[in-house]
């Protein structure tokens, strides 16, 4: 679990906010692609604890959507419901309606395995399997039944090239994936996810343990692959959100002092430029200007 961080009182005073440095090339209004996810009035529980309340948002095709917000606001929880990873947590429960390309994601006939083959995930901490680099990438295709060596070779090369790792590892594909540096290991995990050619890639703070150079590489890579994939990224780094994302969702924590419970809420969702330059909600404004969280 993410550690719950004390949330300072949000100041309501309206002062002139400094504009963030967002390149002029960023489009003002993004044309709306097809909605990949349609999340409606969704609440997520762990046992009796309500982690996230009443989230509604659409995630659009071939865009990068960023989830930002203070620790404990439920952004990772929402991310993990999108490919049913929360099913693995005993007691986790989803209420509400989540549609993925028109299909109800939590319908009883839906197989989580089939969902995860289309919706891949990259984790906060790189988790290469204790296998060779080659076998790490070939893992996904193999569980999908691809046995042909030539076909696997192709997939491994393509995936590693997409993840900008090919040149660094092409001479040691048979060496252990555990021997890679932090940034390389994370790119290996991205390549592993891309190897099954998913429709959506979910990223849970993929750069939080990486230095700026490795982070830059992964951000470039995200921008490069977004024409073929839909990406949702959770990040604590607001600069990262402004650099890579098309849309940003800001989550915050609602505290109920009476029962001493906290629950995550979606405060504001819009184009990244709007969220950072012209936030409508005072809490968003306080957060993106660094006065809160």
């Amino acid at each position, binding site marked *: 679990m993410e550690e719950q961080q004390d949330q300072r009182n949000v100041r309501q005073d309206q002062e002139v906010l400094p504009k963030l440095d967002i390149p002029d090339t960023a489009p003002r209004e993004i044309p709306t692609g097809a909605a990949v996810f349609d999340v409606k009035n969704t609440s997520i529980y762990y046992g009796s604890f309500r982690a996230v309340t009443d989230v509604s948002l659409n995630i659009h095709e071939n865009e990068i959507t960023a989830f930002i917000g203070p620790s404990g606001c439920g952004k990772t929880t929402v991310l993990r419901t999108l490919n049913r990873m929360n099913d693995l947590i005993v007691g986790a429960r989803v209420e509400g309606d989540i549609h993925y390309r028109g299909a109800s994601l939590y319908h009883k006939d839906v197989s989580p395995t089939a969902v995860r083959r289309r919706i*891949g*995930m990259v*984790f906060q901490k790189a988790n290469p*399997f*204790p296998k060779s680099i080659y076998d790490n990438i070939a893992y*996904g295709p193999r*569980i999908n039944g691809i046995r042909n060596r030539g076909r696997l070779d192709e997939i491994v090369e393509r995936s590693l090239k997409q993840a900008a790792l090919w040149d660094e590892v092409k001479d040691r594909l*048979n060496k252990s994936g*555990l021997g890679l540096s932090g940034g390389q290991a994370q790119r290996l995990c991205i390549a592993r996810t891309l190897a099954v050619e998913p429709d959506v890639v979910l990223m849970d703070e993929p750069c939080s343990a990486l230095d700026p150079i490795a982070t830059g590489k992964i951000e470039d890579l995200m921008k490069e692959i977004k024409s073929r994939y839909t990406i949702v990224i959770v990040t604590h780094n607001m600069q990262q959100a402004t650099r890579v994302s098309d849309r940003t969702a800001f989550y915050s924590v609602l505290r109920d002092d009476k029962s001493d419970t906290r629950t995550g809420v979606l405060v504001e969702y819009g184009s990244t430029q709007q969220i950072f330059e012209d936030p409508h909600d005072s809490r968003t404004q306080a957060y993106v200007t660094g006065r809160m969280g």
Partner: protein
Amino acid sequence: MAVATNSAGHPIDLREPSGWRRSKNQIMTILMWLALVIILIPLGFVLVTLISKGAGAISWQFLTNSTIPPNVVPLGTGGMGAAVVGTLEITGFAALLAIPLGVLGAVYLNEYGGNGILARLISFMSSVMTGVPSIVMGLFIYIIWVLHFGYSGMAGSFALACLMLPIVIRSSYEMLRLVPDSLRQGSYALGATKARVTLTVVLPTALSGIVSGALLAVARAAGETAPLLFTILTVEQTNSNLFSGPDTALPFQIFSNAQSAYTGAEARAWGAALTLVAITFILMIVARIITALFTRNTR
């Protein structure tokens, strides 16, 4: 000298300050070395004694001749071949029964059972089984098997497997618990089913630890005499049929020869003991090499 100079030119002492902390460190270091020596003394003693007393008996004939001579016969006639074959067969079959079952049990406990009643019951029962004296296992098999189907090497295997099972379950379970959850999640996120995750990520990651635990169980079983007393009886000729007729094994021969006062029997007991240790040792090395080949990318 561990003395540096700071910017003002004053020397800084970077050594561990003297006092209780330093003394504690030294005391603990000495205690640790002492513990190591205390462990090594009996181990070295046993090995040296075994080799010095047993090496004289070892010969190709001793290892392969299939007739175990009566106690009165001096060394040089007959050999322990029957017992070597018996030990290999009985322990091997016991391992074949206990290791797959034990590993599967551990997989159930750690991956599938969760906190359910059945998982807790199995876990508890296997802990209890660890404490059952080996002779009781022998008697148990005697009552439920030998009384109905007669003595056989297989009955001995059953008894040894009962003994090995809890060790294999316990050690495999501990190894599976060490597999980081992030690896399981990584596999799930690629659309793997639970069985896939277990077979292709969890078990390979834990393999070397599971093999260590299994070897420990095999070594323990190979040296057991008591469970064999009531299950294989004993013979003086090689019984290559594991499934019927009385059999014999090295621990049994050590036991019966060491009880005897004849010098020939005594020498045979030492020789058999050294043979048993050597077999276990070779088995360990072979298993280690095989595991290393299988897991060369896991670290």
